[in-house]
């Protein structure tokens, strides 16, 4: 299979379509929310249904890790930011209000580390269909983690602590990839190479990409809440 061939995970096209239809039937959102929601859905569907999926599932761990970072970190934030207050209230009435930050972070970390365990990862790659489970767990974990933040239930100090804890706790996986001296996944060890990367170089680069993406996302989010904290203080002073 050529690296430029398309591969498909149709379940996620269907889910993205369903989400888009539901969104269109809701109240009229401001443009930025619409754009955010659409970008989030695109970042779920496109990485999983494109040549990116072919390379991720057949050739390079680097691309698979970038794909995971997109669907687990960036897409969930964008999707949740795209929800209007009425949509959030609707979700809260149907159980989202019961999501506690401490459990959300644990579930997210379990999904993050659990799906990257060698046994699970190799199994998902070997079977092919189990990649749907891996990606589903990562997307669900990302939505759970970012919900307490985007729902607005956490005050700024708690949000900073939550994001700080998430940043530190999740960074070990990327660091393990960066500093590894042997490939973690036998699947990629025997996969046909691409762009001249050895298996270990591929893994190190994957860790760098993952770590860089997380650093950027978390620092931006923490920075936003610090600015909120400063704004609250200046309002109190007045």
């Amino acid at each position, binding site marked *: 299979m050529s690296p430029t061939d398309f591969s498909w995970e149709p379940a996620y096209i269907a889910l993205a379509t369903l989400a888009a239809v539901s969104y269109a039937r809701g109240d009229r959102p401001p443009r930025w929310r619409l754009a955010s929601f659409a970008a989030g859905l695109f970042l779920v569907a496109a990485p999983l249904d494109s040549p990116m999926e072919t390379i991720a599932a057949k050739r390079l761990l680097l691309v698979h890790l970038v794909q995971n970072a997109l669907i687990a970190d960036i897409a969930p934030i964008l999707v949740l930011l795209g929800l209007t207050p009425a949509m959030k209230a609707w979700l809260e009435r149907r159980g989202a209000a019961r999501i506690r930050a401490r459990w959300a972070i644990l579930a997210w970390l379990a999904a993050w580390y659990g799906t990257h365990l060698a046994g699970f990862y190799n199994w998902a790659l070997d079977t092919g269909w189990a990649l749907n489970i891996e990606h589903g767990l990562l997307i669900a974990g990302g939505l759970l983690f970012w919900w307490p933040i985007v729902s607005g239930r956490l005050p700024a*100090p708690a949000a*900073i*602590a939550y994001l700080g804890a998430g940043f530190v706790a999740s960074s070990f996986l990327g660091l393990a990839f*960066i*500093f590894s001296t042997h490939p973690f996944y036998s699947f990629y060890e025997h996969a046909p190479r691409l762009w001249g990367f050895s298996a270990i170089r591929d893994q190190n680069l994957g860790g760098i990409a993952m770590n860089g993406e997380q650093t950027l996302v978390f620092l931006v989010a*923490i920075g936003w809440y610090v600015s909120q*904290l400063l704004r609250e*203080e200046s309002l109190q002073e007045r």
Partner: protein
Amino acid sequence: MAPVALAAVAALLFAQAIVRLRRRGRADLAGWDRVALFGLGLAVTLVALLGPIDRLGEEKYLSVHMLQHVLIGDLAPALMTVAVRGPLLVFLLPAGVLAPLARSARVRATLSTLLRPRVAFGLWAANLATWHVPYLYDLALRHDSVHYFEHGCWVVAGFLMWTLLVDPGSHKRLTVGGRIALAAALFACGQVLADVLIFSFHPLYPAYPRRTDQQLAGIVMMAEQLVTLGTLAFVLLRPRLRASRLVAA
């Protein structure tokens, strides 16, 4: 031996401050916890500048050299600044030395300028960037005088930052939110350097040819900052977290 002499002077100044404050009946402001913190700060400095850390850092490993810099430029100033917070700070210099300094308009103006958050942060960031330019890093390794000057810069920059973060004299130059913002900005700056070291595919410093060692140096910087600035953020945020929990309850 310069570090030992300077540490001895610092220890003497701190000891006389403790004794004077206790004689005034304020042992509560000059407890053993302060002595332990200050002692730990001095010990961290000496361990970093003498012995295997100094030798390995200069001769073999960039990661150990980085460890030395974060110890003398971040952890030690943090510990010592926390140790002298409150009235102890005023007693740190004997009255005969403090009085003329405090009366000097020039000294006051200089300190006031240096401790403006934007100025202090700018100096800290410039110091961080400057000393990691490969040419200067190499120069410091080749010339002891430059190396001593570099270490002096780390220590001064560290004390400037931690004076703003801890606010030992309760000058309130920054609000709690401002201090957290400063800590976040310091971490973000440090992270840029750490990422350059971690993500580089080639060794940046001629004296340290191992790429893994260079990546480890980035991790050392990130981990140390996480510990010091993370602890500070936790201490500053804790009362607010408690308050928000009470409101929620």
